[in-house]
């Protein structure tokens, strides 16, 4: 059941699916402390209780310009022992999708191509399934 549970969120105007098993929590991100010299997709650091999250701007991670106003919705994921907050435009839903994930059958823009691991049908829509660790790696690593 858990591995068929997905979080539906909007990144750069596009609804996407993320496996719920990869997600720690969904929170509101408050003050973000900038990290000078960090890659552009790192928005900074934010405190979540005693934890310090590395905040990732998903738009920048896709190689797109940052949104005019920073979103406050964050998807918290833990990768290799580090906690990250992925800034998304909106959290739309969390639901179980019984259908299997299909390979991406179309040509995507470079940024999307690197973070998408498949496609999945959700109601009337077809969504891209996103791997958060690829978002965190950032556009430079993606291009490589």
């Amino acid at each position, binding site marked *: 059941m858990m591995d068929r549970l997905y979080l539906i969120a909007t990144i750069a105007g596009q609804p996407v699916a993320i496996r719920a098993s990869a997600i720690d929590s969904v929170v509101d991100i408050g003050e973000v402390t900038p990290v*000078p*010299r*960090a890659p552009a997709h790192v928005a900074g650091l*934010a405190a979540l*209780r005693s934890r*310090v999250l590395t905040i990732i701007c998903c738009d920048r991670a896709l190689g797109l310009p940052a949104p005019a106003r920073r979103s406050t919705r964050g998807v918290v994921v833990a990768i*290799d022992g580090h906690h990250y907050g992925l800034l998304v435009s909106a959290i739309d839903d969390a639901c179980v999708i019984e259908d299997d994930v299909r390979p991406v059958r179309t040509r995507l823009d470079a940024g999307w191509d690197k973070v998408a691991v498949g496609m999945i049908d959700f109601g009337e829509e077809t969504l891209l399934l996103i791997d958060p660790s690829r978002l965190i790696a*950032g556009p430079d690593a993606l291009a490589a």
Partner: protein
Amino acid sequence: MDDLLSEFIAETRETLEALTGEVIAWEADPTDRARLDSIFRFVHTVKGSCGFLDLPRFEKLSHAAEDVLAELREGVRQPDVQLVSAVLAVIDRIGELTEALEAGETVPGDDEHLIAALRAETVARTQVVAVPQQVHQVRAPVRSIRIPLDLLDRLMSGVSDTVLARNELARRLRHIDEPGMEAAFERLSTCVAEMRDSITRTRMQRIEKLFSALPRMVRDLSADLGKQVDLEIDGSDVELDREMIELIRDPLTHIIRNAVDHGIELPAARAAAGKPAAGRLQVTARQSGNQIVIEIVDDGRGIDDKKLVARAVAAGVIRADTGDSMSSDERAALIFSPGLSTADAVSAISGRGVGMDVVRANIERIGGVIDLENRPGQGLKLLIRVPLTLTIIAALTVTAGDQGFAIPRSAIEEICHDGGGAIRIDHLGGSSVATIRGRTLPLVNLETVLGLPGDIAQRGRTLVVLRAGFGCTYALGVGAVHDHEELVIKPASPAIMSAGVYAGKSLPDSGVPMLLLDVAGIADVAGIAEDDLASVSAAPAPVEVERQDLVSTLLFRDAGGHRRAIRLALVERIEDLASAQVSHSGGCMRIAVDGRILPLLGLDRTPETADIKIIRLNDGAVELAYAIDDVIDIIAAPVRPDAPSRDERFAGVLLVDGVQVELLDPLYLFSRANEDRSVSADGPLCLIADADDPWMREILHPLVQAAGYRVAFADDAAGAAADVLIVGDSSAPVEGAAGASVLRLLPDRPLKGDDGVYRYDRLAVLDALERTARRAA
């Protein structure tokens, strides 16, 4: 089953670590029944467990070892070097198999030859080459349970959460005025602090974990090299953060290897040098405050610092003239510079040097410091200091562009303020250097490195002098320095580390995340690589000039509470005196000390306190004491005071950290002290031509008088009978002293043919005065 297996692996590994020391100790003393028993118990346990777990290779090995050890216990066989090596080999193989088992791999090859070696009867007894001994191991049964590390980490973060919640509560409580609340809150705070303390301690391990592997390593190494080494280990029970232990392992291993390989000589060479055949290697650990100090001392040949310098000059690490001016320890410390770390360098310098730069870098990365004391031909002592734990470090918080950053205190040499005259900043071809007390350092502005806004050109900024590694010292300009804080540091994510200037992140009590700066990374990013640094510090010319212009000056608070200064060269010593030794006698203040009476200046009445502090001054002829309240500092101050003095007591006014400080005039002090010696009524009379020249009146007059002359000025009627007439360069002609011999004083050093004496050369002036006076008589 999996649980049983992992339990077996963990237990075997743990016993193995403890066991290596036992085997070596047993080899050194084969009659030690207790050691033999514990080795026997180990193989017996392994045999028992692995039969149950179906691990045939383990079983065969342990079975064979158990048989041999049983024979030894019964006295059927006697232990010798080959047998001990065979047992060690089996134990090693068990270790390898254990690691492989955990990783799910297999160890290639079979174990038959190992088992055969155990059974082989020794034909001839060989001499034991290595004699490692005296392994101080205190084994008390400890009640313990095994806990997964991530559980401990979770506990730790839970406590950190509690601390944050407590801080939040504290902020809110400030607005509530309820009796008893404060006491209750205090109690909660104490509990939380205690809990944090004990959880931190759960992450601690005895350094024994690290030390127990040393006897074996030293034994194997010395046996390979044909050397004899006595290893002494002390302080195994010192506790250290488990992460820290892992991080010290490599550097320590490296140092011990070097000591045995390059430090301790072959027995014949030792005998020739008059040392015992067996070299001594001492490894000790002790706790000192919130640091652990590890000392590695050997009595080998030490570092040949002269050869090392030659090598360093050849490698371009330092300049030839720099090498001459270095102290012997500084020269030996060159061993830490990267240019000298190649294997080729080692054979060339007959010293150590294999990757000592790496050792230093590793120690410094964890906030530690490494030092050495070299006694060429006698041995070497290396001192490693590391913080108790990686997670909590003492840090200085600073701001740049309104954002806070932390700097590890261990990297900070000093903090100074660009305000007074003590710091000079020069901009050279796009970069900046700061000259602090004659030392020229590259200047890096934190805002520039981080690309933050900030008025870095403005004066009055704070400079933090950082040591980023050997020879890499630089000044970091920051917006402001905030506070010294103990911070819980966590590793930062790879995305942040990729910036290259951070060492970790922290969440201080303010609740705003803060980044810990990587001082070496900043040097890197700022482009002050060590080569550049070498060129800055190897340019001795400006530094030397700077040094000549500055003299050591004692800064003190006088009895009246004023900040005053005196040239350090005049100060003989500073001492405390009972007030009873001070009295107003014979018209002035005097002290009785060392069976003599000395004039006391700087105080005009008997002190009310029980004792006073004095500075004792001595100019070679006259001694005196000057009363002070306390010493403030010793500073390097310019030779020429920043402003002249109109008061004869002072030579001028210095600007120290933005505060005006009067510099005592030694001539005045000594002349005052000399007033005691009454001027003899029939002494030669000296006529000074320029009564209006302040130098003549204020400086020369007391000097001449102190030398025992009567003094008259040109407008005095008494001047007519003068024996000596002193004239300056531009003195008006003096009439009425026809019988006097003339002494001419010049404001500059006389050139050849000039008639006269340089007026600042006190000895020459007195000497000339005496000769002139004699001529007149």
